[in-house]
């Protein structure tokens, strides 16, 4: 975008560049998308000129899930609520679409997802999660086996063999494990030849080995990969603590030694009584072992999500372990989420999967939008009434903002699966007010400058400098609210925050790169430059009546145009705080008297029947001004 100095001199270029970048290019991209990858029934993610709509406006797919306990425990309301949170998190993390998730009849979970739903999404939603804490026996980089690089065909052969044999190896692992009698879960004797064989063959760069899926036997050693991108592969001992003992897991900044907060992110886990006891026993043993056997492997769905080590001498007996080191804010939050999900011993069975229609009558929506349109028309009428021809700039700016908003939503619904809900539509209608306010602030500042007697080009420049600051400061507050709500809230509130943030950014762009250059251009048109009565900026309408200092020792006394002076009710009342009945300060036409004239009037008044001295010590000048009876006019 053009920098400020070129902006000042070249409004046309700014306008053209802005139009190309914000409208022509996105529109071309959208058209290309519609042409090359149209939205069809087979390709619900394709581009379309009509933005995607959310569940309430368009309908979608309804999946009914039944939670099934994996450990025979009863499914309580609490665990259903927890499951709803888990599912919501999974859906939210897959895009901005607003899903509806509810508990039905106390035993089912109903998930409504807008639009067509593919199998991957259903798998994502119904995926079970099982988490276990296991001791690490050993680990190494899980790169592809390289012992026979010279003989590619042999390697391929062995790989095939390995996959064929995998069931066989697992069976041998089970057999051999029965013969070994480990003294404790960290016993290295558990690494039997079959385990070693599997470990050596494991390739953690192969995506197939990173899929996970539960089903690991808690009583046997586990050979698996880490899914944190570290490419490490592990041999882990039997389960020490079941993940269901984790009550909560959260992320945050690690507190320092004396209550201060450090700059380091960590994950905080809390366990129930049984878990606390088991965890204490385990840490007691692990802390004394040599690396890497002093490490815990946290296994979720058969994959290691984290393998923190214990420092010697650390025995965690309060059931509140804390994992720190090398976390970013995001990675800490992800791990905390995984830990909370994994603590549910629940599988989800898909009961039914059906299409569902929109919950809002289309007629109702149309009526609502119609009413909104009437309101819009009134906005146009009002700005034309208030700002005369200048109101057209407001209307034009609103139109430009509307077009850009439409294009962004259409592109976002193609690119990220954004869907417009009724709340989103309402948010857009409300955005009209926010957006129009930028122009109103700007125009009022220009008028203020004209009132101070500046020429149009000067008034636009100076008014812009002052308005810019106000607009940016006020919009930042709105942006803060959008960003905070987007990152902290879930579901509908998140969708709302997204719309709010989007319209705010568009609003700032429009006022900087459309409205302002447009006004700069208009100041060159004689109609506006000279302040025609219908331009909305006519100095006659905007200047205070009466003499004013115009610089260089001159005072101008404009003949009050449109002759409002004659209509001025009485000489004084318009003058704030002036006390009636003392000495006249304006003449019959409302013009302020000169000093000499006033002195003369005072003398005449003093000569007349006894008025006091002109001043009676305004003790509380603030409370004296303008009639308090006029307050109703404020609103």
């Amino acid at each position, binding site marked *: 975008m053009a920098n400020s100095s070129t902006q000042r001199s070249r409004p046309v270029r700014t306008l053209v560049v802005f139009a190309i970048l914000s409208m022509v290019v996105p529109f071309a991209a959208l058209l290309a998308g519609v042409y090359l990858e149209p939205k069809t029934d087979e390709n619900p993610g394709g581009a379309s000129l009509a933005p995607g709509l959310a569940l309430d406006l368009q309908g979608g797919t309804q999946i009914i899930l039944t939670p099934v306990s994996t450990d025979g425990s009863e499914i309580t309301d609490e665990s259903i*609520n927890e499951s709803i949170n888990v599912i919501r998190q999974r859906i939210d993390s897959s895009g901005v679409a607003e899903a509806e998730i509810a508990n039905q*009849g106390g035993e089912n979970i109903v998930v409504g997802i807008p639009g067509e739903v593919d199998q991957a999404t259903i798998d994502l939603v119904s995926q079970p999660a099982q988490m276990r804490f296991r001791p690490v026996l050993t680990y190494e980089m899980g790169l592809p086996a390289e012992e026979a690089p010279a003989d590619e065909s042999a390697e391929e052969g062995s790989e095939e063999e390995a996959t064929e044999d995998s069931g066989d190896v697992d069976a041998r692992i089970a057999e051999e494990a029965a013969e070994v009698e480990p003294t404790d879960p960290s016993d290295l004797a558990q690494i039997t030849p079959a385990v070693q064989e599997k470990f050596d063959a494991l390739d953690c760069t192969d995506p197939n080995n990173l899929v996970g899926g539960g089903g690991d036997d808690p009583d046997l050693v586990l050979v698996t990969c880490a899914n944190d991108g570290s490419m490490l592969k592990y041999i882990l001992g039997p389960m020490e603590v079941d993940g269901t003992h984790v009550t909560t897991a959260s992320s945050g900044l690690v507190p320092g030694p004396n209550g201060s907060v450090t700059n380091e992110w960590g994950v905080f886990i809390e366990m129930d009584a049984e878990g606390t006891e088991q965890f204490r026993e385990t840490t007691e043993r692990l802390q004394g072992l040599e690396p890497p056997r002093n490490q815990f492997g946290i296994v979720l769905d058969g994959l290691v999500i984290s393998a923190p080590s214990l420092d010697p001498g650390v025995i965690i007996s309060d059931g509140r372990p804390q994992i720190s080191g090398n976390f970013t804010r995001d990675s800490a939050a992800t791990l905390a989420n995984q830990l909370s999900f994994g603590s549910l011993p629940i599988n989800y069975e898909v009961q039914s999967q059906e299409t569902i229609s929109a919950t809002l009558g289309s007629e109702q929506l149309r009526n609502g939008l119609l009413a909104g349109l009437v309101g819009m028309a009134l906005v146009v009428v009002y700005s034309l009434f208030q700002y005369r021809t200048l109101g057209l700039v407001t209307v034009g700016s609103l139109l430009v903002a509307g077009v850009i908003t439409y294009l962004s939503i259409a592109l976002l619904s193609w690119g990220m699966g954004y869907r417009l809900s009724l709340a989103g539509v309402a948010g857009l209608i409300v955005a009209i007010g926010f957006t129009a306010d930028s122009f109103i602030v700007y125009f009022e500042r220009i008028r203020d400058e004209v009132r101070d007697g500046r020429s149009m080009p000067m008034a636009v420049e100076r008014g812009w400098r002052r308005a810019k600051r106000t607009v940016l400061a006020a919009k930042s507050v709105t942006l803060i609210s959008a960003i905070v709500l987007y990152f902290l809230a879930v579901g509908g509130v998140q969708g709302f925050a997204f719309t709010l943030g989007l319209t705010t950014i568009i609003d700032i762009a429009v006022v900087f790169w459309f409205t302002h250059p447009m006004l700069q251009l208009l100041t060159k048109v004689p109609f506006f430059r000279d302040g025609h009565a219908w331009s909305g900026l006519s100095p006659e309408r905007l200047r205070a009546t009466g003499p004013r200092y115009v610089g260089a020792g001159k005072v101008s006394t404009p003949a009050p145009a449109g002759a409002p002076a004659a209509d001025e009710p009485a000489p004084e009342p318009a003058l704030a705080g002036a006390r009636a009945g003392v000495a006249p300060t304006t003449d019959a036409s409302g013009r302020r008297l000169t000093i000499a004239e006033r002195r003369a009037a005072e003398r005449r008044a003093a000569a007349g029947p006894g008025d006091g001295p002109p001043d009676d010590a305004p003790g509380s000048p603030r409370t004296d001004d303008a009639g308090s009876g006029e307050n109703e006019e404020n609103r």
Partner: protein
Amino acid sequence: MAGSMTFAQWGNDLYTGRRSYPIIAQRKIWFSIVAVLGLASIVILVVKPLVLGIDFRGGTEFTVNEVSSTEQSLAIDAVHEVLPEDEPRVAVVGGSAVRVQTEIVEDAEAAAITEALAQAYEVDTADVDQSFVGPTWGEAVSERALWGVVVFVLLAAAFMAVYFRAWRMSVAGILAMLSDLLISAGVYALVGWEVTPSTIIGFLTILGFSLYDKMVVFDKVRENTTGVLDQSRNTYAERANLAVNQTLVRSINTSVVALLPVAGILFLGALWLGAGTLRDLSLSLFVGIAVGAASSIFLATPLDVALREREPKYREHTERVLAERRALAAGGGQEAELAAAAAGRSQLIPGHHQGNAAQPRRKR
């Protein structure tokens, strides 16, 4: 408005200080009005609490199976026979079933609704299933939203304090915003409509709008009061009063422009055309925007002035200005001059020498 004057001239007079409403000076009145409204809202909220909708409390779900017609209005009419006040949510599931969700109903009412639905869709009552449906907007969602709001308000307060370099301004803004929320909630409770997720979204919008509007008004106050301590013509309160008067036209225009579309949805859409789904949102927005814009002028700025005048620096300055003015008045000063100064007039009145202090100074 103001006799035969046009709106633009009224704006001129407000700008120059020629006409001035003593908004700051009469702050006790505004504070009492807000206190009364706030108390009334609390009383209303206690006596007649907000009614939570099915998204928060759950409801009863009827599924009409094997229907021949999937007309949604049939279900709405059937439910209205039994529950005239309820806004049922109707959806077609899988092509041959209609799902109707209502508020939680008694067994007798549920039986009546089942009967009415069966009749409307010409099916056997055995084809109408009934079950409880849990809230889609669970406590977890509310909790996360609440956290979001708390963090946002704290951040916004910090932002305002830093931007204006005055924590008092940020306190005044936040307090005024909270009172806006309270009063809006009171009005909503008084009307007695159900709280839906749209209502919550509406309240979040109010929160944003209210703070936004306060930023705009405060920025004018900041502009007018920059360097107020370096002069002895006006007090902080007078400068702030001028700012409020100068921004009055902007506030009116903005409120009208923001309210028109919302009023369109509320009055035309919800009450006349019967778009019940948008009425919750538009009501909360309508009240909130009006209250928010008014409180920027009548509550936030006076509150800021009240807080500022407790600051020793400003208190001393105010006393000094008033003392000087009294001295000037005693010495036979021009009453118009004094009045103009009291109104915080930005424009000097021609015909007087302002003294050497008024001459331009080299920038420090």
